[in-house]
């Protein structure tokens, strides 16, 4: 695909999976059309979007006539397909570490954050709607595992055990992030990389959502890292596309160390 072919990103808030390719595009300086989907209004399961991504997952990106899904794989694609600063380190060991961290976050840490986030934010946001309408909306979700997740979030039926396990993992994950960021300036290498973009999307609100676990005293390296990423012009442009209070949580990083 010619680098100049047009790019459209279908995304929700600059947060988690949507924010990963968004921030990567901004860092690379790629001009793209932003197509905002309201996740809480189930825009991602409506026919218009299902025609782009039949799985109904967010985000998706089109580049010319190519359609790409899976946020972390899109990030690697954007880094390779476009000019602009390289976001994967040259060293093969560092590149391995970037991928290791992204998988650790995507498959272990982020699901725990999102279980907590869905139970305190997503579930209550949609729970007040007409049950029949909600039921119909859930039935339209193509992936069975996403139907299960939505039902659990809406009914608030994550067990106490599941929630405790998620909280345990968040604490362990914060410890590992702090350890890694104590060893080097950026998460996976000495240069800013896709691992930092991925990690910021997961962790930008940590000092607000987990203040007892992440703050200037307990996790100075995480705080230094989050503030450094927030200070980047690409991050500012990216978070300006947010429309909800969730994305506005990023302003917690405007404060100086206590």
């Amino acid at each position: 695909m010619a680098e100049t072919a047009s790019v459209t990103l279908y995304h929700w808030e600059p947060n988690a999976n949507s924010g990963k390719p968004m921030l990567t595009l901004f860092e690379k300086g790629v001009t793209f059309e932003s197509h905002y989907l309201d996740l809480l209004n189930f825009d991602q399961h409506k026919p218009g979007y299902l025609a782009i991504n039949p799985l109904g997952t967010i985000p998706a990106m089109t580049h010319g006539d190519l359609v790409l899904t899976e946020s972390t794989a899109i990030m690697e694609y954007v880094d390779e397909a476009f000019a602009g600063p390289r976001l994967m380190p040259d060293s093969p060991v560092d590149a391995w570490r970037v991928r290791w961290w992204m998988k650790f976050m995507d498959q272990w840490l982020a699901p725990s954050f999102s279980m907590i986030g869905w139970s305190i934010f997503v579930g209550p946001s949609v729970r007040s709607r007409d049950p029949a309408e909600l039921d119909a909306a859930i039935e339209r979700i193509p992936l069975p595992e996403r139907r299960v997740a939505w039902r659990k979030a809406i009914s608030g039926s994550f067990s106490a055990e599941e929630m405790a396990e998620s909280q345990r993992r968040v604490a362990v994950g914060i410890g590992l992030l702090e350890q890694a960021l104590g060893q080097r300036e950026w998460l996976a290498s000495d240069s800013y990389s896709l691992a930092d973009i991925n990690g910021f999307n997961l962790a930008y609100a940590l000092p607000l959502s987990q203040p007892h676990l992440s703050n200037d005293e307990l996790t100075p390296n995480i705080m230094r890292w989050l503030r450094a990423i927030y200070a980047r012009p690409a991050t500012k442009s990216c978070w300006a596309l947010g429309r909800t209070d969730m994305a506005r949580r990023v302003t917690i990083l405007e404060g100086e160390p206590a």
Partner: protein
Amino acid sequence: MTTTLYHGEPNGPSLTVLAALFEKGADATLERIDLAAGERHSARVPHAMEVDHAIEGEGPILVVDGIPMADSVFLACYLDDVGSGPPLRPGAPYDRWRMMTWCRYIVERVAPAASYLGVESSPPARVPEDIASVDLAQRWSDAVAGRIDETRLADSRTKIVQAIERIEQELGDGRDWLIDDFSIADLESYAWLAGMQTIVPEAFADRPRTAAWLARVKARPSVARALATATGPAPERVWAPGPEINRWG
């Protein structure tokens, strides 16, 4: 640069990395460890957070100049970068995206199912000491105690059936390999699925393209050489706790 690969029996992730090493002609000292006995958690193997908390569970460790690295797909990417043999990843960004999303599907959906079925079929004898990851330790004690959830077992069998359906479909245009040329996607898929032929035989029934693909992968010199490192007669029956089944269902 000194490189050592600590690997288990050539099945699952150990098979992927051994074969990738041989495909690329990369130089490494091979150290056999007994993954099913939990030797990865012993002092014999170098430790690092990336090994102790690897999402893959029990898999090989590649140590490069003292840095221990884990996770078979990414180790294969590393070997592809440093080795001199033919590329194990496509060159074009879109085709590389195809390969990485395929591998993500295998490691996230298929590998947890295969290892769940594998340890149910060949449970480990005892839980090793000093497992750093609390959730991996839980998978070990469940496997040793035979605490098998019937719903998860049935769902795992379905995942294997679906994976073979997808492979049969991918190869529908007459291609030899899952992406374009032979790649890490073929290795990782074969490594997790070869042992499923005896455990979920119905998945493989009447799947001629998949059968021919399995034979092609097995016939590659790199895979044959990896399989020849086996210390027992049936490496495809040797399992240790792998990645967890997605907590969201």
